[in-house]
């Protein structure tokens, strides 16, 4: 039985003017279909590097990545990506046309596109805002559009790189709750990158903690067996939080 996603001894060494830097070394991870995996780690430990390889933007310099048994070669519509910033939205298109972009690439007709885009606008709580352009939307709304755009394309899995990193705490909490709800409904496999422990514990079925670089790799995986929606003040949540926190703390202060 093969895993849905397999990262097998994956490594990434960047070569530049300042010499070679091994950002990721011997990274092993297996994701099963429908799980919500949070990759947690301190800044610069190699989280984005791992995601970029899985997305197909970068090719690993060691090991292999497989999606449903097939090696990943370049980006493709089977892996939807939500980027950290919102520069990835198309300013010249309305929110609706941004969401329908992938459908348009496949040659879907206009009215069908529109119907699907409107459904996903509703799903991310932006009913009636479809005619606005990105410049007329707040940061939180833009991230909702990004999520809707990725989901509307119906990928096999979703890759999210600190999608709420640039938002204020309140907006972030709201979007976390909504993402949890959406995921509970469609059960897409998600790889979610964050450096926020609470966010990871609130969303994930499993949290992977990374060791910091050079040679960043997976240090421990903590399953979070709590029902959704998660009660952040419950004892069980606190216990998970503490467990992950200790792992991260050891990374931040390695010599204590």
């Amino acid at each position, binding site marked *: 039985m093969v895993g849905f996603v397999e990262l097998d001894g994956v490594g990434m060494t960047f070569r530049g003017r300042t010499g070679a830097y091994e950002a990721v070394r011997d990274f092993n991870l297996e994701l099963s279909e429908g799980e919500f995996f949070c990759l947690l780690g301190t800044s610069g430990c190699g989280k984005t590097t791992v995601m970029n390889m899985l*997305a*197909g*933007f970068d090719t690993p310099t060691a090991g292999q990545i497989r999606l449903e048994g097939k090696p990943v070669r*370049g*980006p*493709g*519509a089977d*892996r*939807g*990506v939500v*980027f950290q*910033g919102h*520069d*990835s*939205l*198309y*300013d*010249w*298109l*309305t929110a609706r*046309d941004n969401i329908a*972009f*992938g459908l*348009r*690439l*496949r040659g879907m007709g*206009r009215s069908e596109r529109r119907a699907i885009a409107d459904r996903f606008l509703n799903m991310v709580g932006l009913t009636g805002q479809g005619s606005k*352009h990105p*410049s007329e939307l707040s940061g939180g709304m833009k991230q909702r559009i990004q999520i809707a*755009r*990725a989901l509307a*394309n119906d*990928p096999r899995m979703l890759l999210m790189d600190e999608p709420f990193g640039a938002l204020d705490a309140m907006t972030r909490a709201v979007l976390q709750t909504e993402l949890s709800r959406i995921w509970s409904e469609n059960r897409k496999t998600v790889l979610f990158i964050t450096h926020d422990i609470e966010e990871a514990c609130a969303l994930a079925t499993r949290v992977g903690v990374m060791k910091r670089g050079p040679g960043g790799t997976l240090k421990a995986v903590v399953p979070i067996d709590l029902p959704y929606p998660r009660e952040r003040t419950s004892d069980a949540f606190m216990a998970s939080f503490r467990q992950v926190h200790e792992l991260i703390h050891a990374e931040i202060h390695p010599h204590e």
Partner: protein
Amino acid sequence: MNSRSATVIGYVLGFALLFVIWHLASQYLVSSVLFPSPFPVFERGWVLLEEGLLQESIWASMRRIIQGFLLGSAIGIPVGLAIGSFRPVRLLLEPWTEFFRFIPAVAMITVAVIWFGIGEESKIFLIAYTTVFVVIIATAAGVGAVGRDKIRAAQCLGANKFQVFALVALPATVPYILTGMRLAMANAFVTIVAAELVASNDGLGKMLWDARLFMQVEDIFVALISLGLLGFATDRVFRLLIRAFAGRFNPTM
């Protein structure tokens, strides 16, 4: 008061102030027949309009500008897109643009007249020449400035290379292209006047030259004001286009 009417009122007052200062300067600062007050200039302008001479000159110059400008843009945009998109093309053609952009169009007037005579062709050539390199450089820079995440997002939505170009790189570059064309239009005004001063049978440059020969100082000022107003108007149009397209250029949807 909304900001649009504030802008209009600002412009009207600004121009009025300019003419007041001009009038005062001509009355008290340099009172000389060589520096007329705005009133005789306007009178003369009115006469030239009634005789149809001013429109003729304006149309001669504007026609050349528009033709050369469109030709230069039609060449510059695809070449700029190619330079920005394909590394070999850039390596090959960048030396050209970096070389020719330092040879100003006014320096090419002599050779243009030798090649094309003093008719329309030489003017159109010169305007196209002055337009093309500015547009190429702006377009290529625009292609280079398309955000990496915009391209990546399209790729993982399933876009092939052609779709990335046509649906992402091209629309994202439109504001840069328009900005380049706006700069090129300013160059075109410089070039057309210089070319018509040196070698032409009509146009605003010719009007300036003739007025100097016959010491018609008012005519000189009429031609100068016409140039200023025409440039101002075309630049306004470009600014409106840029504002309309920068935020929401939508190619086909």
